[in-house]
């Protein structure tokens, strides 16, 4: 006899969602988190697209510790001293159903973890799972220290590194080409100062991504999100070529935070926290084993993340995959069968959902991003064209098309056409 219907490893968004949904259906669930509370080991840029959690907990943003609702999207191309920015401000971004929120995981995940407990899940924070119990090729429980706990099914929601899945041979080790490292600094400022600096009112927020000099030639970029009383500023850098970079991640972070576009925004702010995390970046190609006899894998551990340059998503996928994992377990419990054949319904649900559909639509984007022109030459080109347009110094005028052509030719017209075509195709 198993002690639990399900043991869930990892009290992040995927795990806590799964625990919440299962507990609500009256299943006996144990949610285990190695940190002292849900979210204590988690970090995001970051922005949560509300749709997937909204379905599970309607109007969650009214009670959850969200920071600000995004109404302003900015994208900048940067060179060492220049910035060219696209700014989109619209109440449509905040409309119910398509709203998104800046969140901080230490607070937000803790709330969801506690919701799972309130719904009836047994929670165990501050407990590290050392190993899965595998008997006759079937996952039957977990080992924490010298204690063994058994369940009909184990849901692995233990994050991008998923040491447990790897140790048990359920998943291959993540490769440097599939992931990026994220680093973030949270800068405290009074709400009023943030609102003035970003042109926001009330709980409005800004989401801002940066391409070009912040990643110093690596695949990646910078990000800035406005919290209630702080600003999240950071970088995401692909690991594949990071060893060849002439700068360390800290040198890049310092250069980014001292950039003339950024420095005034965090002026007089107090550093509250420095965090780091690995981000799955390879899209569909890194989604590996999702289920088997007695187990399911969801969230970052399954590789569910979408990075399409102007938009990064992982948390809404984690929540939806946690919900589907729970639904698959509920169906398996009804049948009294937790074999791979029954748990396959998880994959069917994923395939029919936005998760696998969106991953399939954007499957070519990660390889498109490998193109070094995107992070070096194009930001420089845009900056040169802008300088030609706006700088007046008394030299004889040259028609704009001639000015622009000179810089387009630096990159190469064929390259531009090719990259433009590939880029449009991949999104």
């Amino acid at each position, binding site marked *: 006899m198993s002690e639990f219907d399900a043991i869930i490893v990892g009290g992040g968004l995927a795990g806590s969602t799964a625990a919440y949904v299962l507990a609500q259906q009256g299943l006996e669930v144990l949610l285990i988190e190695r940190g002292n509370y849900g979210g204590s080991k*988690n970090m995001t840029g970051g922005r949560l697209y509300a749709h997937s959690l909204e379905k599970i907990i309607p109007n969650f943003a009214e009670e959850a510790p969200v920071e600000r609702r995004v109404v302003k999207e900015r994208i900048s191309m940067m060179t060492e001293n220049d910035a060219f920015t696209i700014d989109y401000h619209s109440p449509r971004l905040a409309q119910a159903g398509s709203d998104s929120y800046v969140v901080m995981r230490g607070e937000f995940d803790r709330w969801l973890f506690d919701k799972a407990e309130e719904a009836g899940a047994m929670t165990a924070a*501050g407990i590290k799972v050392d190993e899965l119990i595998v008997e006759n090729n079937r996952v039957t429980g977990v080992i924490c220290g010298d204690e063994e706990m058994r369940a009909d099914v184990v849901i692995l929601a233990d994050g*991008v*590194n998923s*040491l447990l899945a790897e140790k048990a041979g359920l998943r291959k080790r993540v490769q440097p080409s599939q992931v990026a*490292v994220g680093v973030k600094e949270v800068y405290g400022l009074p709400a009023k100062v943030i609102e003035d600096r970003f042109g926001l009112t009330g709980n409005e927020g800004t989401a801002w991504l940066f391409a070009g000099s912040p990643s110093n030639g690596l695949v990646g970029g910078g990000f800035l999100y406005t919290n209630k009383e702080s600003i999240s500023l950071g970088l995401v850098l692909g690991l594949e070529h*990071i060893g060849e970079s002439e700068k360390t991640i800290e040198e890049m972070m310092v250069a980014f935070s001292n950039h003339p576009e950024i420095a005034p925004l965090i002026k007089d702010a107090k550093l509250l*926290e420095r*965090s780091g995390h690995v981000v799955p970046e390879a899209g569909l190609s890194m989604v590996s084993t999702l289920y088997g006899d007695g187990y399911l894998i969801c969230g970052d551990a399954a590789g569910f993340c979408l990075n399409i340059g102007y938009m990064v998503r992982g948390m809404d996928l984690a929540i939806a995959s946690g919900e589907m994992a729970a639904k698959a377990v509920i169906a398996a419990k009804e049948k009294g069968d937790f074999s791979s054949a029954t748990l396959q319904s998880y994959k069917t649900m994923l395939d029919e959902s936005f998760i696998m559909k969106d991953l399939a639509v954007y499957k070519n984007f990660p390889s498109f991003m490998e193109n070094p022109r995107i992070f070096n030459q194009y930001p420089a080109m845009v900056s040169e064209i802008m300088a030609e347009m706006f700088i007046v110094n008394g030299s004889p005028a040259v028609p704009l098309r001639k000015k622009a052509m000179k810089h387009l030719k630096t990159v190469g017209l064929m390259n531009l056409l090719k990259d433009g075509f590939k880029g449009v195709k991949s999104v």
Partner: protein
Amino acid sequence: MTMSVEEKLGVNKFFVNEGKPHIEIDPNYPDMKEKLKLVKACPGGLYKLNENGTLSFDYAGCLECGTCRILCLGTVVKKWEYPESTMGVEYRYG
């Protein structure tokens, strides 16, 4: 005011498992390229190249991101586990 990376990590909350490193490295690993990956990529700036070419590493400020494991497990990184229950970094913001 410029803060060093050590000072930045100093604002974080850590429960350090004294004397029980969760990550172990080979400071004398011969391939410089491998060692440089870690110096460049660790978001805590915890890997430092010494003047004699050896590598030093301080697990106390570890952010538990797994970057060094992904880059160098089996070469410079000899052992990589999460810290024991309740130990390690605790994100108050995250």
